[in-house]
């Protein structure tokens, strides 16, 4: 019977079901796509590692050359060890940077570094797309994108340049090396995945030549010139001579799933969506229950127990979760495949397989992605539904408004976890040995406390805004004020979402700006330095387009969910709308009313978000010990502050502009379908 009840509810509340199903499917699809991309990245990595010989059990970077002192190995010894130990998959790779300058754009004096490699042994593979490997002096295989940049084809010639380190001790003097192109290899990158392949492959004969393009020349204090190479040796099993200079090889160890940087956008979107769905569950849950009150009360009057109602509500959402799992997983795989196909098309000569990899964890992630939010989303309405009294099926004796039953959390209760968390963190870190569980528990308490404070704060704020609006002389604003005050739970939810997104966007901007400043400082001493472990250790391969995509996707997700919340608010307030229409509010004024109801919380949320971002950002800057160390520091610091402020304001403005548009659309759509004659 519970199943029948669940199905009956699904049919009866089709619009809500479709909303919930769509959001859950989107979440499953995004997370599935992320995992599939991760599995594909993991499959690409050993192939990528194989190109440079990085896929071996052991690795060494011996000092090779005739430098003063005692080099680890001579070049002849390296070659002998690699070639005389068959079965160990041994390989030696010489690598160095060259540049195509003057290249295709001679007017742009940018030193574009191309990684050029050469290998000897049996443990490396050149990802040839056409032609053959470079085996003799003066031969080169170019990556497809490099060949495209130079407009080079097989049989043609190219010149690559190498700094003359001995004469210039810098990059000012370049020595050109001419090559004949004998092959074209896979492109250096695959958009959407972290693939960094060499731009060119030359013969070992050229690479190992002391006068060749990959040799370094040094001038000693006695005036003599020395030669060295950057050589990586890698092998499996035991080779005594190499083991003496070996180090454990862990940096490039690959797991089952290695998330490419681009998938951060997917993850970010999924995180925003999940957060928004949880907020929506709490905001919509009660109105969902009150809409179903008569339905539930009728069934209860006929003998259904509270538990049956709660279980059927959960079962209803689990049915949605099942559908979301099936559709979302398939959609996610399709999304990832589309991303790979587009990446391959963009790459020209793409590296790796044409089809995405599926991983065992995929089903688990997709199932969890459907199940966990489904349970969260289902449990809240189920709890409220089970509390509907059967008397609601008869004539209502006392109809409680949302404002009356929406429980207020005392300020002390909201702040308590914050205080407890702060104490725990202080206790956990005060001793010489950090007590990790206490610190973790402390941070969890702080997070819970912050959420509670933000939620309670927004509840007060939206009620205050409602009271201010209700004093307006405009009928639309007056009505909007009443709505904001009457249903604080639904009103507050879009504000919380706006605050969270604006704060996150502002913090991200801050991190990006600091990260850029920090990296520029590594290469350009004229830039200001921001010495900070706090920020520097968050290095990722996330690019600006990725961050921008995340921000846009996040904004869209927030708007979709906020619209769903406002829609549910409007459905719950349908009788109020009918009453307003009867009292003389025109359709235009009703649209304006709901525009205010939808947009005002977002405006408040965005403003709070800016304040929070400023507080968090400048606190972090203070903790991070900003140390501008040159004359331009203060000016650069002011520029930094301006950038952060602009970034935050841009995020808020974009959100508000989008919010205004979606609010209008929601208000218009709602007017068409909900207001009676």
């Amino acid at each position, binding site marked *: *019977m519970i199943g*029948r009840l669940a199905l*009956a509810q699904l*049919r*009866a509340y089709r619009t809500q079901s479709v909303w919930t199903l769509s959001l859950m499917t989107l979440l499953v699809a995004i997370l599935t796509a992320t995992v599939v991309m991760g599995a594909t990245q993991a499959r690409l990595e050993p192939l990528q590692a194989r190109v440079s010989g990085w896929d071996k059990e052991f690795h060494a970077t011996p000092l090779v050359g005739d430098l003063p002192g005692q080099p680890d190995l001579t070049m002849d010894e390296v070659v002998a060890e690699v070639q005389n130990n068959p079965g160990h998959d041994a390989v030696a790779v010489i690598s160095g940077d060259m540049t195509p300058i003057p290249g295709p754009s001679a007017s742009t004096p940018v030193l574009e570094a191309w990684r050029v490699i050469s290998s000897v042994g049996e443990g490396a593979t050149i990802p040839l797309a056409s032609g053959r490997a470079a085996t003799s002096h003066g031969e080169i295989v170019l990556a497809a994108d490099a060949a495209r940049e130079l407009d080079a084809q097989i049989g043609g010639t190219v010149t690559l340049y190498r700094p003359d380190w001995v004469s210039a001790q810098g990059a000012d003097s370049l020595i050109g090396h001419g090559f004949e192109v004998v092959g074209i290899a896979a492109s250096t990158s695959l958009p959407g995945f972290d693939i960094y392949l060499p731009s060119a492959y030359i013969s070992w004969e050229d690479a190992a030549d002391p006068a060749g393009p990959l040799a370094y020349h040094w001038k000693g204090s006695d005036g003599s010139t020395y030669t060295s190479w950057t050589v990586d040796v890698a092998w499996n099993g035991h080779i005594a001579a190499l083991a003496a200079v070996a180090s454990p090889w862990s940096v490039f160890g690959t797991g089952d799933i290695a998330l490419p940087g681009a998938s951060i956008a997917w993850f970010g979107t999924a995180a925003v969506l999940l957060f928004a769905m949880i907020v929506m569950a709490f905001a919509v849950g009660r109105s969902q229950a009150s809409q179903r009150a*008569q*339905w539930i009360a*009728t*069934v*209860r*009057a*006929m*003998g*259904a*127990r*509270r538990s*049956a109602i709660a279980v059927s509500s959960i079962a209803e959402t689990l049915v949605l979760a099942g559908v979301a799992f099936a559709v979302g997983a398939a959609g996610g795989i399709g999304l990832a495949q589309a991303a790979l196909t587009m990446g391959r098309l963009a790459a020209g000569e793409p590296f790796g397989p044409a089809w995405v990899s599926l991983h065992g964890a995929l089903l688990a992630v997709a199932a969890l992605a459907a199940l966990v939010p489904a349970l969260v989303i289902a449990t809240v309405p189920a709890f409220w539904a089970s509390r509907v*009294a*059967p*008397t609601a*099926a*008869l*004539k209502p*004796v*006392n109809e409680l408004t949302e404002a009356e039953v929406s429980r207020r959390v005392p300020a002390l209760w909201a702040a308590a976890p914050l205080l407890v968390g702060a104490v725990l963190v202080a206790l956990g870190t005060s001793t010489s040995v950090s007590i990790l569980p206490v610190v973790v528990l402390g941070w969890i308490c702080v997070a819970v406390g912050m959420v509670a404070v933000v939620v309670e704060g927004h509840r007060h704020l939206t009620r205050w805004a409602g009271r201010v609006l209700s004093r307006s002389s405009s009928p639309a604003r007056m009505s909007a004020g009443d709505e904001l005050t009457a249903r604080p739970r639904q009103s507050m939810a879009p504000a919380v979402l706006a605050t969270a997104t604006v704060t996150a966007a502002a913090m991200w901007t801050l991190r990006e700006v600091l990260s850029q400043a920090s990296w520029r400082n590594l290469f350009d001493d004229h830039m200001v330095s921001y010495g900070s472990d706090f920020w520097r250790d968050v290095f990722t391969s996330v690019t600006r387009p990725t961050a921008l995509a995340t921000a846009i996707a996040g904004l869209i997700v927030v708007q979709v969910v906020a619209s769903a919340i406002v829609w549910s608010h409007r459905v719950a307030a349908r009788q109020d709308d009918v009453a307003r229409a009867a009292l003389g509010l025109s359709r235009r004024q009703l649209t304006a009313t709901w525009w205010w109801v939808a947009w005002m919380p977002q405006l408040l949320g965005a403003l709070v978000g800016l304040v929070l971002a400023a507080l968090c950002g400048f606190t972090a800057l203070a903790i991070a010990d900003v140390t501008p160390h040159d004359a331009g520091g203060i000016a650069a610091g002011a520029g930094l502050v301006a950038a952060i402020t602009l970034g935050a304001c841009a995020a808020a403005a974009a959100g508000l502009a989008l919010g205004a548009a979606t609010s209008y659309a929601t208000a218009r759509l709602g007017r068409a379908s909900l207001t009676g004659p």
Partner: protein
Amino acid sequence: MKDTTEAAQPGDALALRARGLTKRYGSGPAAVTAVDHLDLDIAPGELTAIMGPSGSGKTTLVHLLAGLDSPDEGRVWVGDDELTGISDAALARVRGRVVGFVFQGFNLLQTMSARDNIMLPLRLNALPTDKKWLDTLVDMLGIGSELARKPYELSGGQQQRVAIARALITEPRVVLADEPTGNLDVHASAQILSHLRASCRELGQSVVMVTHDPTAASYASKVLLFADGQVAGHIDNPSREAVLAGLDALAKVER
């Protein structure tokens, strides 16, 4: 076909009994006593109408008699089952098997067919389907050709007849009807009231009906006049005029 000769007759054990029933809302000076130390006996096979002005406590009384709400004082029995002081699960069982409901707004589940709506209480309470009893109800109420339809495809009168069948399908000791004709026209109301009276006479059912309509009350075998949470009087075998006179007298007493 149900054997109606076995149905309880007036004079048997009471279908519904209340003693000292009291329900208050609010507290302090704002407290309102909706039902005030009420004693009530409903005999089997009777159609009892409860009438009274708005706010007299009629709906609260029905809530209490059905176990939908719990009294502050007093006790309620449906047959031999006492409703006061029992768990939510036990109350749910009573509501599912011992009491039937007919609502003013019909309260049919729109996504289910008329047949499924009628069978819903059986399924909710894991009771077996008595095909003969179902046929008896369907024939008596004249909804045999409507069973496959959804509620929104039926007229108001047809919907209420489906709701009556739903209320009777579990063969409850008592059916509680809250303004069962409140949303119907005169013709449909007459049909529904005839069906309710037939269910008492032919099936031995006890029906307690809250109504504002003197015509509806005239179908009852007894009218209880309710005021200030108490039974202020009663009319046996009422006519419409007698009910109106009783309500007039009640209004004068209140003034």
